[in-house]
């Protein structure tokens, strides 16, 4: 069964995220485990945010791809601990985000609002560290909205090339 699990893992890793279709589940870091139980493949994924509406679609996608590859009767489980962090987006994933015009996240440990830390007194919810513009590389960028089209993104604008762009928040 070992070889089968490896093959199933390869398939699961290649499934893409419906809201960030340039990223695979492996790139995004939400694929937690692929195992075999009683002859059936069990895939464990973790949500990025508590209310992520894409999780169900991802689960269906996983089951479908596995079925097509001959792994009938697979199940998809959710795991919530440890909580997903944007640090789990792989270097490959970061390259793909950048290529798609989305700025990849800064390290979460340094940048995310620390739970129970002091409340920042900004008028703009700016990322702690400068975010490089994915178009021109300038660090002269500013946040225009703290929340974007999906839970995981904010909106920024470049002060050099003036392009607006999305930023995957450190989380």
């Amino acid at each position, binding site marked *: 069964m070992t070889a089968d699990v490896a093959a199933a893992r390869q398939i699961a890793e290649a499934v893409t995220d419906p809201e960030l279709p340039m990223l695979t589940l492996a790139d995004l870091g939400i694929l937690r485990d692929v195992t075999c139980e009683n002859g059936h493949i069990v895939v464990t994924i973790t949500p990025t945010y*508590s209310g992520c509406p894409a999780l169900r679609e991802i689960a269906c996608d996983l089951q479908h791809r596995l079925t097509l590859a001959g792994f009938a009767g697979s199940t998809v489980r959710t795991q*919530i601990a440890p909580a997903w962090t944007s640090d789990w987006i792989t270097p490959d994933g970061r390259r793909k985000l950048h290529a798609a015009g989305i700025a990849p996240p800064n390290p979460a440990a340094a940048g995310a609002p620390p739970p129970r830390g002091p409340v920042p007194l900004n008028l703009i919810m700016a990322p702690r560290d400068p975010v490089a513009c994915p178009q021109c590389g300038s660090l002269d960028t500013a946040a225009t909205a703290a929340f974007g089209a999906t839970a995981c993104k904010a909106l920024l604008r470049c002060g050099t090339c003036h392009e607006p762009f999305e930023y995957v928040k450190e989380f």
Partner: protein
Amino acid sequence: MTDDEFTAYHDLADETGDHRWAFGTGFTDPLEGIDTSVPDGVNAAALAAYCLMLGDDALIYSHRLQQWMTRLPELEEETAIANIALDLLGQARMLLARAGRAEGAVLAESTGLAESTGLAEGTGLAEGTGLAEGTGLAEGTGRSEDQLAFFRLEKDFRNVRLAEHADADFAQLAGRLLIFSTWRLALLGRLHDSRDPVLAAIAAKGAKELAYHRDYAAQWVIRLGDGTELSRTRMQAALDTLWPLVDELFRADTVAGDLPGVAADPAGLRAEFDDVLSTVLAAATLDHPGAAPMAEVAGKCGRDGVHTEALGYVLAELQSVARAHPDAAW
């Protein structure tokens, strides 16, 4: 079906036989595959009641935030409030599912379900809902998130009264979000090492989300408070209106008292809350509100199922479709 023809739509349609599928439907148990057994020595009935409280706070407040959609002053605030409401809805789903599983553990232990009236006492869980029939309760599984959200009566909801308040203007939205997220962040921050690993995991995830909510709210309170004379007046009025609902957040409740090492003592959150509020209000040049707490009714308030008039309107909207079509699936 070839690989090329594949879409998630086809797959979901095949699975459910329902071709009206849309993104965001087809909900499954948010705790599927997670070990939800109640740890040894933890009072399962109290755990169910506690998760119901925290879940109801998130569910009802999320609904109030959703009511702001299409009414906010700028598109950026629409996406922000939608995202915040979605985070809270996600927390609510997991917490209600956790409450249902813990409830199931209680029911599985008790023999002779019909006679076990002691269970409902004090927790309000099964009290008067008439749900035990035909819902799988008799099999010891507890209620699902949908049953808890859509088929409970007003008096069975355990949210604090702050959650059900209807915002009269954007200043109240900002002020209430600051109060709610500061309080809930302090609360969830203390649950990350809860003896219930499921609650701990939900809290650890939620705390990261709430840190963003709190920052967003603080930013608006400062901008409005330290803004024009009109915006300052309205921001101050909003906080004065909301302040009577603040004391209840820190009120001792017997459920948390029954869960040592699992739940957080509400009173213990006050210092952190006061610190954050003082800091933000000072930066916003706002006066610290001094309004007296809203009265309790015979010593009872939201956590006891005694609510303001506002909750009835929330539930009428939230539950009407599910109650009109109790056999519908989504």
